[in-house]
């Protein structure tokens, strides 16, 4: 007994000292850096201010886009997206800094480009149309369709969609099922909504898949679309559905901000990713590397819907799908969405030389070799590697610059996206900062220092159009 006491006493003293030293820790940063603050004004006043600001907000974003890109409608003759509804845009659209060519730029070191501010602005992170407010912004075609079919309003009073229609995916996008390759596109040439899905899909899907689809089309409260005074839609809203952004399981280029970064000014823009080929994708979310589509489907109710702020979600009405039932069904539905057909690819996603052109074959060679594309975009793995990589673009620009209220900090590691069906999903990169495939070739040529010549660049674009 005395021995026990003598051992215990020093422990108490040590613990006491540790507790004391922890108690003098300094003041934390203000909570509003992490948590969404509560509104400070009545809804009517916020709305009046937002509506008054809107023209200037849109003009500012238009100026930024026109400063960075050539957004003209110049399609590649004869090349359409998989549904045959929209042509694919051609050429490099990122504008060069004065006096530079793509070759002169590629010949410079990252330091030289950074010191002289020569990185094309279109290669920099792309701000949200209104960075300070952020949130989901839908393109006109989606707003119109959901308004007509469901009487649900996806239009914000503070901002509009900012990219011209030709720079976004075809609408509606076709739907291909892994369970029925023989059927081809099963979309009826329409956008799936809560009103039409049963009519279109019963008899093709299983009961479990149908229930998953119903849940993916059911609106739930979201940060900007809800019933509280803290919303950006005129009338009280029942919310948004998963497929409001991932239209027909593809993307309509609706955008948002990453839920994974704070404060608000540092959050990068997120271009909606396609859900095609999800069955082969082992990690989910640009930044979070969630390990299953079940995890992702479940947690999106707090991330895509509420910016990763579970406090705000709780106040506005979070939907928590039941994991063993609802989440599983949502996941099973997503997991049967196939890539569009790529008739020139063999079963392991290499070009069939009897079908591909000489230029496309040359492009594949560059892709596999000098261009270093296949080091991450591995053909047999659906052009992914199920990893995240840090391109360290900040080697080329001075960090901490502010563009339209967005602070450009390094992107850090980002998930490798698939390139199957890539011609169907402009704009490119996680934030949609690149408008065309030719832009992506120039971007990676600079970032990876591969020094491709024009013939190799053109071949790469031709190759990517076959995927």
């Amino acid at each position, binding site marked *: 007994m005395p021995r026990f006491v003598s051992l215990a006493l020093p422990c108490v003293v040590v613990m006491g000292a540790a507790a004391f030293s922890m108690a003098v820790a300094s003041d934390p940063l*203000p909570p509003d850096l992490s948590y969404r603050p509560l509104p400070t004004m009545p809804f009517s006043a916020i709305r009046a201010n937002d509506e*008054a600001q809107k023209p200037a907000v849109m003009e500012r974003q238009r100026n930024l886009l026109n400063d960075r890109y050539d957004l003209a409608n110049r399609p590649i003759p004869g090349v359409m997206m998989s549904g045959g509804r929209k042509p694919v845009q051609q050429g490099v659209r990122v504008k060069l800094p004065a006096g530079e060519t793509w070759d002169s730029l590629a010949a410079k070191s990252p330091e030289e480009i950074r010191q002289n501010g020569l990185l094309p602005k279109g290669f920099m992170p792309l701000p949200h149309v209104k960075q300070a407010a952020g949130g989901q912004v839908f393109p006109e075609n989606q707003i119109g369709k959901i308004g007509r079919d469901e009487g649900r309003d996806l239009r914000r009073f503070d901002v509009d969609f900012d990219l011209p229609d030709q720079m976004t995916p075809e609408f509606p996008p076709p739907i291909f099922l892994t369970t029925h390759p023989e059927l081809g596109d099963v979309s009826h040439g329409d956008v799936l909504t809560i009103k039409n899905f049963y009519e279109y899909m019963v008899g093709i899907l299983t009961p479990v898949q149908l229930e998953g689809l119903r849940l993916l089309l059911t609106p739930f409260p979201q940060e900007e679309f809800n019933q509280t005074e803290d919303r950006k839609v005129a009338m009280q809203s029942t919310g948004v559905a998963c497929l409001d952004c991932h239209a027909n399981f593809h993307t309509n280029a609706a955008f948002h901000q990453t839920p994974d970064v704070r404060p608000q*000014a540092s959050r990068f823009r997120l271009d909606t990713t396609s859900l095609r080929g999800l069955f082969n994708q082992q990690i989910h979310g640009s930044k979070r590397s969630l390990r299953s589509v079940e995890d992702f489907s479940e947690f999106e109710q707090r991330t895509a819907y509420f910016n990763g702020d579970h406090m705000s979600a709780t106040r506005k009405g979070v939907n928590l799908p039941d994991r063993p039932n609802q989440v599983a069904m949502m996941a099973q539905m997503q997991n049967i969405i196939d890539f569009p057909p790529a008739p020139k690819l063999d079963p392991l996603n290499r070009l069939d030389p009897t079908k591909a052109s000489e230029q496309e074959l040359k492009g594949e060679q560059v892709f596999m070799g000098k261009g270093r594309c296949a080091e991450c975009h591995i053909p047999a793995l659906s052009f992914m590697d199920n990893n995240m990589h840090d391109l360290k673009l900040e080697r080329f620009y001075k960090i*901490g610059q502010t563009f339209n209220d967005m602070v450009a900090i390094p992107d850090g590691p980002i998930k490798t996206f698939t390139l199957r069906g890539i011609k169907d999903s402009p704009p490119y990169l996680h934030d949609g900062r690149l408008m065309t495939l030719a832009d992506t070739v120039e971007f990676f040529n600079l970032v990876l220092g591969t020094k491709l010549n024009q013939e190799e660049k053109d071949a790469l674009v031709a190759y990517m159009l076959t995927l």
Partner: protein
Amino acid sequence: MRAAAITLGLALLPAHAFAQFGNPAFMAPDTKMEKPGVPAPNQTNNTDRLFAQLLAAGGMAEVDLGKLAADKTDHDGVKNFANRMVQDHSKANDLLKSIAEKSKIPLPGELDADHQKMRADLEKLNGTEFDLAYLSGQIVDHQKTVQLLSWQIGSGQDAELQHFAADQLPIVLDHLQMALTLRAELAGQATAEPAKAQ
């Protein structure tokens, strides 16, 4: 004369000066508007006022500790860094003070408790021990300042303060990178290459 001074003042403003907007969801309810949706100059919200006070406290400490370090250290790199802190933060502090006066934000007049303690701790150290402790403190302070500046850019309402924050942010990130590189050098750590100090 006054008109000339105003014209000159406008000419000196950076090109982006009129490109920014307050965040209307988090405006102070008593904000006076220049026109609908655009706050009049020097109209502040809660973020502006807290930001200015926290940044002024941090800036004052940078100068104070920078003078202490420039005096105490034997290391050339640390001395250069400390002198740069005194120089850059004195300039920023003056600028912040002039905006705060216009916007009627009271700023602190003396070192806060955290930095008084930091100063007292540093005074007891010498040599490499001092350098490492000084730089470690600088790293945390600059990490916090980076986040505060970003917060002001996104959530402030006073356009002049927002521009101040946007102009300071790349400078403070430079300081942070310098401190990280120096501390790693002194402690024999590996450094993060990409955004190394200018």
